[in-house]
């Protein structure tokens, strides 16, 4: 038995004559035609990704401007370049993946889960390189304050991103929620790096990085809840 033999059997069994009722097809066409309006196709992925990146930057900068740029002022030049270029790359990658989730049948070289893993690992690596103060003063209280601030800031970023990419996500709402949550989480991390003057390594490694998976998990939960609600209707 060769692959060609298997192929022949598959070809033979899959060529079953399946006639669709013409009335069904004309019913579908009539139903669509009754509510047909012209729509504008989505703009290119890079434009939507750019808009998402602008939203993230604007939300993080606005929040940091209100609370103070204490963190970024304490950082050296190369530390600023390393941290914020990493965040910019991650925002671009995650935004691109979030946009791809909107488009059925789009090419997806990396899954949202892979990007989340890569993003968390990249942040841990950069933070471990930059921050060398290994004290743990007020580890829990200061940490929870930063985590909550990051997550709270992720909320408006997620809402604005969702508003930009509304009317879609026909394929996988949970993965879309994960992507949107991860993008909003990166916005929260960016704001913390601009604002938080606590440079203790463990604080940054644990609590700042936790904003990313925390926000992504919240996004996936929202996607799942919306999916359950729509499938129950």
């Amino acid at each position: 038995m060769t692959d060609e033999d298997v192929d022949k059997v598959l070809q033979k069994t899959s060529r079953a004559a399946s006639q669709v009722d013409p009335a069904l097809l004309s019913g579908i066409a009539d139903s669509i035609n009754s509510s047909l309006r012209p729509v504008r196709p989505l703009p290119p992925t890079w434009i939507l990704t750019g808009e998402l990146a602008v939203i993230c930057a604007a939300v993080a900068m606005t929040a940091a401007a209100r609370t103070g740029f204490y963190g970024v002022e304490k950082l050296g030049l190369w530390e600023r370049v390393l941290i914020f270029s990493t965040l910019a790359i991650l925002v671009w990658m995650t935004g691109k993946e979030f946009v791809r989730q909107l488009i059925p049948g789009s090419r997806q070289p990396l899954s949202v889960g892979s990007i989340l893993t890569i993003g968390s690992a990249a942040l841990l690596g950069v933070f471990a390189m930059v921050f060398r103060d290994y004290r743990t003063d007020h580890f829990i209280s200061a940490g929870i304050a930063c985590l909550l601030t990051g997550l709270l800031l992720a909320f408006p970023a997620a809402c604005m991103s969702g508003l930009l990419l509304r009317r879609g996500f026909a394929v996988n709402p949970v993965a879309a929620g994960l992507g949107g949550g991860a993008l909003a989480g990166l916005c929260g991390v960016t704001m913390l790096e601009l604002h938080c003057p606590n440079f203790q390594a463990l604080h940054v490694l644990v609590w700042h990085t936790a904003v990313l998976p925390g926000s992504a998990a919240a996004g996936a939960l929202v996607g799942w809840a919306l999916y359950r609600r729509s499938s129950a209707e």
Partner: protein
Amino acid sequence: MNSADNLNTLMARYQAGDCAAVTALVECVGPQLHRFFMAQTASRSDADDLLQETWLRIHRVRHTYRPSEPVLPWFYAIARRVRIDHHRRASRTTALERPLEEVSDAAATLPSEEAHWEELETLLAPLSESQREILRMMKVAGMSLEEVARATSCSVGSVKQKVHRAYRNLRERMTAMGPKRGSSRGLS
């Protein structure tokens, strides 16, 4: 102009609000999607429901199609998702509704047609769900590796690997069943 170009043009006209393009698109893609669903459910009534639900969803997200992108993966990604949603909904209610479903399915599907699709399902039964799905897309829908990869959100390498494993499983199974299998499929 080949079939794919024709579908791309029809989709662009559909987005522009052309009623004739909708009718042509439904008549062109509808039977393909119906076959895709028949290959999975072996029930005409289920396939009809899935086809209608798929077109409703296609209509809702028609703005997400870009004329520069291949059109078949776009259709099949939506159809695949509708099938998954339907399967999940059905599995939540199967325990209560199964006897009625069986009665309606038996009445709704022509015996020879049902037997044909069930034959395909029996053949693919030992494979994993993802392997079955990929073979159905390739053999029933006639899609390329690249198109299947897009429709299933996988890489082309992953699709190739699944096809390779599926063929190996089928080859081993058919070899083990030998002449009995061959005669039942008209291979001997």
